[in-house]
Structure formats: structure tokens, C-alpha cells
């Protein structure tokens, strides 16, 4: 259905407030967009982390974007299952993250414990001579790393 595709395009283009180069489609948190014959749009998104404070902002932004695009009745639902994984970040999303200065996550694999990160490539100079400075960074989804080649600190999107 053409209209459903359009509502999905509008929803998918909403940006993550913490990483404003990524759309929620790039992040893989947009699960489903449906529109019924009354023109009501229902959006399902899944949180990255249980306590991610960006989710409320994303909900508000979704309603605003869809309302601006002419959809009068918009509902947004959080779905927990299946749990989001960084493997759902698109290739395009990974490229944008790196350009933005955030090292993208390693593959999470299936159901393992915390993945072993062998080395994280510096998004500034490309060196793999980097070290973790703090496992917990400015947001729940990021760790703080330092490049030993160019000496710049950078964020690493944690594998989840």
C-alpha cells in the first residue's frame, strides 16, 4: 500500500536525538508502521537500552513528524521483544556513525555474553592502536575510548 510506505518513510526519517546523524531506521529500532483504512498510523519502536531516555523524545518526534506529514491520528508503542541488538544497525548507519566520529559496534553474535572486543578502529585516524578509557560513556549505548596514535578520545558504540 502506497500510503503505508509513505508513513513508514516519514517515521523512518526521524533522527535519534543523541546521535542526530542516524535515523531511527538506520538504528534498527523502528519495528513496524501500519495504517488502517481510517488513516490512523500505529508505530512500533523498540528501546535500545531499557532506561534509554531518548525514547520519550523519539516518541514525541514521531508524532510530530507524522502529524506534520498530514496523519491526524498517530500512536506509538514500545515493544520489548525481540530485544534490540546493535546488529540491527544498518550498514549505512555504521558508515554514518564512523563519519560522525563514533566507532561502530562489533557484531554481537547470537546470545553470547559481553562480546570480546579485540580492537576498535579510531574513527579519526583509522589506527587500531586504541584503548578503552571507560566502558560507560556519555550515553548508555557508548563507551569512551582513546586513540594512542592520534591521541584523540572517541566514543565507541557498545556491542549489545
Amino acid at each position, binding site marked *: 500500500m502506497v500510503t503505508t510506505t509513505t508513513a513508514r518513510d516519514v517515521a523512518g526519517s526521524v533522527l535519534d536525538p543523541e546521535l542526530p546523524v542516524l535515523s531511527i531506521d538506520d538504528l534498527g529500532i523502528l519495528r513496524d508502521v501500519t495504517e488502517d483504512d481510517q488513516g490512523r498510523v500505529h508505530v512500533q519502536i523498540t528501546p535500545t537500552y531499557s532506561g534509554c531516555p531518548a525514547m520519550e523524545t523519539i516518541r514525541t518526534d514521531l508524532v510530530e513528524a507524522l502529524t506534520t506529514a498530514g496523519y491526524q491520528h498517530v500512536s506509538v508503542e514500545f515493544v520489548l521483544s525481540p530485544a534490540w541488538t546493535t546488529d540491527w544497525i544498518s550498514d549505512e548507519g555504521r558508515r554514518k556513525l564512523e563519519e560522525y566520529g563514533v566507532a561502530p559496534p562489533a557484531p554481537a553474535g547470537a546470545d553470547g555474553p*559481553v562480546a570480546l572486543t579485540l580492537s576498535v578502529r579510531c574513527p579519526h585516524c583509522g589506527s587500531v592502536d586504541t584503548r578503552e578509557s571507560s566502558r560507560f560513556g556519555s550515553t548508555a549505548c557508548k563507551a569512551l575510548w582513546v586513540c594512542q596514535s592520534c591521541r584523540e578520545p572517541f566514543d565507541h558504540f557498545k556491542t549489545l
Partner: protein
Amino acid sequence: MSAPVVTDRDGYALAVADDALISAQRMGWWISRAPQLEEDVALANIGLDQLGQARALLASVGDEDELAYLRDERAFRNVHLVERDQSDFGVAMVRLLLFSAWQSELYAALRASSDPTLAGVAGKAVKEVAYHLDHASRWVVRLGDGTGESHRRVQDALEQEWPFLDELFDGSWLDSALVDQGVAVDPAGLRDGVLARVLPVLEEATLTVPEVSPARGGGRQGLHTEQMGYLLAEMQHLARSHPGATW
């Protein structure tokens, strides 16, 4: 053995939620007080994960704000481990080690719960808690296998926290029908898995497993330690003093 006080799904979800909520409140205390800035951020993030787990569970029981801010002490079902003061960094790390090891086992098992919310929260949380456990393990090893002073203090912390571990494995408060129906996880069945996670860390940290009697417990029945009242006073006073306030 007392009679089970939790006989339905909501009561069980509240117990799991309250452990996470009260732990999150204690974690928040460390913001601006941790030994280094990165640790402020780490403990805030860990608390935020726990708060998120609690919110999803509370919202499945009723109004999350009312449940968090307007319930009286006797209605909270959290264990004593998480509610007591943790203004010593060694205590905070030992407690996080025990609690996150237990949450790891609990959430791993709860992924198979017949209740979709419990299973959904567990599926997300199990991955977050792996980071908490790793963080606490690294600190306990660093402190235990560190200086004489840090070893002494983290051993003291272990002696203080260890008696509260048993309450996590007590299932007398829980109607066994909930376990049989696949809603809840039998607490007693988690002990071996938790110890298998904790004991190697203590060994690497050169710490001695305390020989102490278990504490009395009672948190699941709503019987709390004195410090719970002070915690709730801080957590709830704004919502109670200014009903309906928004900002």
C-alpha cells in the same frame, strides 16, 4: 518458613521490579561522589539500566509513578541487599557484583517465562546486566588484589554484604504454582549459577569467602531495614509533597 505472600503474576513482577528500582536509587547516590568522573558516569548508567527494567515491569502492574512514589514501605518487596546504605565504594562494588550476578541468572531464566512482559524485559536486561557484572568484577579484582588498604576494605565489604546473599535464593514468599506455571523462576535454583559467577572473581581478587550466618531477610514480605525509610523519604518526598507536579 512462612506462607507465600506472592500468589499472582503482578506480585512477582513487583518483587523483580522493586529490586531493580531500589538498586537504581542507591546507584544514583554516587553521581558526583565516585572516586573518578568516569565512575560517576558508569554508576549513573548502570542505575539507568536498572531503572528502565523497573519501569517496564511497574508499568505492566499499574501506574508506574504511583507504584514508585506513592507506595508505603511495607508494600515494597525488594530484598535487603539493595536497600541498605552503600556510601562506601567497596561495598557498592561488592554489592553490585552479587546483585548483577544474581540478576544475570534470574533474567537468563526469565527469558523463558510464560508472561510476555517478564520475558521481554528479561531478554533486554540480560545483555545490560552482563556489562554491570563485568564492571563490578573488574573493580572487585582491582581492589582486592590491590593495596593492603584496598584489600582490607573490600574484604570488610564482602563480610558485610555476604549475609544478605541468601535472601535472593529464598523462595518461601513465592507461591510455587507461579513457578509451576512457568511465570516465575524458582529462586533456590539460581544459587549454583550465581556462585559459579561470583566465586572465581573473589578468588582472582584474593578475597576470602566469609563464614557468616545469613541475615534474617523479610524484604519480600515487606519487612525492611531502617535505612529503607530514609531511602524512600528521599525518593518519594517530591512526588508526595507536590502531587501531580510536572517539569
